[in-house]
């Protein structure tokens, strides 16, 4: 009992002295810094994804109005012969008037009464694209004329924004493109079941639309353009990249030339992508005279950019094949070329393919070089099928995103974020495929 009363000298190992304490505290701090750093990086990733997903998911839903439209023969087809060539003379303005009348009728039928709703506001309630939608439908099927058809048309982007939280009654007062009366009309139509916000497939398939019609803008041309460029990149860079890797890894003598090639490739992998854009502009467009905005030029530029990114993993994959395979092949009388192409290359194929897919994914997201070769142009027409289509004007997914961010209407920010989701889905699929390939086929020696 008395022992406890005696003050102990702190010599026990279990009782750290001041210096040990401070060293331990430093240890804990250091560890915490590391943990915080990892956390910050993960948080940044989360913030990035949340911001994009939060802004972009709504692009996949779109508000549309379903109404009965009477298609009078007197205005749409005076000749009465239902010849689409003749009917083309009626412009979208003509169809717009018919639509406005139909909306007026629908409002009256539903018994909706809204004060100070002018006729112009009813006309502007619909998207500028609505009349074109109706016109296309009638031209495709002239027999509709003279009948009353049910048609679903897009409404104005601001009305769409009202259901996505971008527009409110207060903001509408200050906005020249939308009025509170229109919002009331929208609410009334929604109640009557004519106005619905539903899944928007057209966002992925439709072509781009003008500044004034964010509700109609889609990614169709951009997706096709990106697809064409990826085809070109794949067709060109896979054989060239693999051939280069095989030569450097298996055949190249150790001399100045192969050293030069090697240094060159590792440097090219780190050259800023915009420099490749300058090369494309100077070499392919100004010198070779290829057309601007064409997938062929984009594909060539991206090929040059992707090559080093394919060669490096391909060489690693070839290097990972053990020399015993080569020796065995040579031992039973194969030539050097046969040993490489019959044995080493097939064994390295999974690794090469993985590198190829990752390189393609990088090329898919590349924007800067494409800006310089004119892919930012406003393109509404789908490119033809390959090979002619490779020379038609088109845009690409990332460039379309950039293009939309440069427009004034805030609805395009939603579109841009939605387009990024599409892009990220492609990237996740490609990278997932690469991981799958690696898991399934990669051999450890």
């Amino acid at each position, binding site marked *: 009992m008395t022992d406890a009363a005696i003050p102990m000298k702190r010599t026990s190992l279990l009782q750290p002295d001041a210096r040990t304490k401070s*060293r331990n505290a*430093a240890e804990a701090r*250091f560890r915490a810094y*590391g943990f*915080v*750093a*990892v956390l910050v*990086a*993960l948080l*940044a*990733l989360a913030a*990035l994804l949340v911001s*994009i997903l939060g*802004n972009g998911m709504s692009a996949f839903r779109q508000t549309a109005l379903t109404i009965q439209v009477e298609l009078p023969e007197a205005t749409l087809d005076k000749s009465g012969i239902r010849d689409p060539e003749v009917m083309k003379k009626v412009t979208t303005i003509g169809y717009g008037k018919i639509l406005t009348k139909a909306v007026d009728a629908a409002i009256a039928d539903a018994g909706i009464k809204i004060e100070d709703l002018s006729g112009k506001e009813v006309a502007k309630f619909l998207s500028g694209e609505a009349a074109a939608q109706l016109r296309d439908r009638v031209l495709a099927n002239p027999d509709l004329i003279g009948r009353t058809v049910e048609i679903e048309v897009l409404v104005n982007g601001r009305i769409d924004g009202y259901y996505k939280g971008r527009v409110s009654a207060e903001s509408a007062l200050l906005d020249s493109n939308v009025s509170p009366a229109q919002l009331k009309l929208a609410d009334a139509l929604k109640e009557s079941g004519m106005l619905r916000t539903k899944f928007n497939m057209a966002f992925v398939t439709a072509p781009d639309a003008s500044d004034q019609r964010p509700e109609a803008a889609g990614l169709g041309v951009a997706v096709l353009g990106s697809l064409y460029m990826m085809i070109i990149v794949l067709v060109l860079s896979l054989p*060239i990249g693999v*051939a*280069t890797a*095989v*030569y*450097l890894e298996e055949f190249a003598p150790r001399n100045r030339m192969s050293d030069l*090639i090697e240094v*060159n490739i*590792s*440097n090219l992998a*780190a*050259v*800023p*992508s*915009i*420099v*490749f854009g*300058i*090369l494309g502009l*100077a*070499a392919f467009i*100004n*010198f070779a005279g290829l057309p601007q905005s064409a997938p062929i030029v984009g594909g060539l530029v991206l090929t*040059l950019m992707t*090559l*080093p990114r394919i060669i490096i993993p391909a060489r690693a994959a070839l290097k990972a094949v053990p020399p015993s395979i080569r020796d065995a092949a040579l031992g039973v009388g194969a*030539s050097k*070329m046969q040993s490489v192409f019959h044995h080493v290359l097939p064994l390295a194929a999974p690794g090469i393919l993985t590198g190829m897919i*990752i390189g393609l994914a990088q090329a898919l*997201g*590349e*924007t*800067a070089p494409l*800006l*310089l070769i*004119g892919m*930012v142009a406003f393109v509404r027409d789908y490119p033809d099928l390959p090979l002619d289509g490779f020379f038609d004007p088109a845009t690409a997914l*990332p460039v379309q*995103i*950039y293009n939309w*961010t440069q427009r004034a209407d805030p609805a395009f920010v939603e579109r841009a974020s939605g387009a*990024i989701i599409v*892009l*990220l889905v492609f*990237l996740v699929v490609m*990278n997932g495929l690469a991981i799958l390939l690696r898991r399934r086929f990669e051999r450890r020696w």
Partner: protein
Amino acid sequence: MPLSWTILALAILPVIGFVLGRNRAISSAGGDTRNLHSLPSYYGWSVALFTALPAILVMCVWLIVQPSVIANAVSGLLPEATPGDANAQTLVMTDVRRLAAAIETGRSVGILSGSETAQEVQGKLSDLGVVLGAPVTPEILGAATAWGLMAERGGGLMSAVVLALALVGFWFSYRRITRDFRARNSIEAAIRAGLIACSVIAIATTAGIVLSMLFETGQFFRQYAWTEFFFGKNWQPNFRGNSDLGILPLLWGTLYISFIALAVAVPIGLFAAIYMSEYAGPKLRSFAKPAIEMLAGIPTIVYGLFALITVGPMLRDYFAQPLGFGSSASSVLTAGLVMGVMIIPFVSSLSDDIINAVPQSLRDGSLGLGATHSETIRQVVLPAALPGIVGAVLLAASRAIGETMIVVMGAGAAAKLSLNPFEAMTTITVKIVSQLTGDTDFAAPETLVAFALGLTLFAITLALNVLALYIVRKYREQYE
């Protein structure tokens, strides 16, 4: 279409050659393939290769050269609109080329017979829905007709030459097949040549980059003094001429933004790498390492949009405006922060590899002497890994300097020499994009300056990369 027939012939002839060559080889060995020098298919391949390859090469060269030869000949037919003005000449030639293509479509549809006047041609083509850039004048119509005629003749001549070449190749290679012919060696030599040609493309690309930029930069410096470019403090391009094109404000913006990006990425990336390689358990590591590396796989346009719609407005509303630093959403800090996030994985994964490469014996020695884990890292592991880490940081810096989309969307377009990080500034890459997009006139210094900027950028990043690779390589030799 004679071209597609030629291509079809070039696809079929080698197949026939393969079969015939293989059969000849087998029959020359008396039906017993053991008497042959090589496997029978090699004989087939050697015929196919000789049939197809020279013909295809000639066809490609012909297709590339023919348009410019015709253009030269046709431009002689045209009255010189404005002598010496190369630009007007190019425009006229574009019209001619377009009209020639339109006339060919018109012929193939059957609405043009070839004897119309200029007005009639224009009318009929616009009925067809073909849009022409300029009104059709008799001179242009004449030139376009000549163009069409020459293109037709050239195409016919090319088909003849190519097919003849294919047949000669076939005959030559078919005749030399005997049982002792070393077919495998000749095939392998051809494949080897192909492999070498592919690997030379890398050098050609670099040469192309350097040459194209050097050429245009030379043109630029003929119109604009290089001292003004490298030491000018003003950037005010003016498309009516008389512009100030000093690189210093752009260089300052580039370096400032890259500095902020590195100030974000180096501590986070380095500490993350240390934590991952020295402390983290396998569970956290297997989750966090791919997650951080995902940051590198996200396209830069995504970061750009993130800067534009999230980070920029946030910095403006919560920091810049309350503190009175300005009211711009695009700022150096916005771009720097977002770019910092982007290059975290470049620093962390390279540093991770390098820290893992430090031999365990060094750690064991230090721990055995009683150092704590963090003391071991700070005083033993990091000094040993330092050259590699410096290399990683240099690579990240070169990445930051060459980054385009984040700064285009996050940093703004105003060229300024200022210290305020909340102000919009601009970089070399932003100006390359803005000078080269839209309507560009490749004779004006305002456009050509982009090539000089590009060359500068290329030189800076190349120097950083070479330095980084040198340091990393030198370090690696120590432990291997």
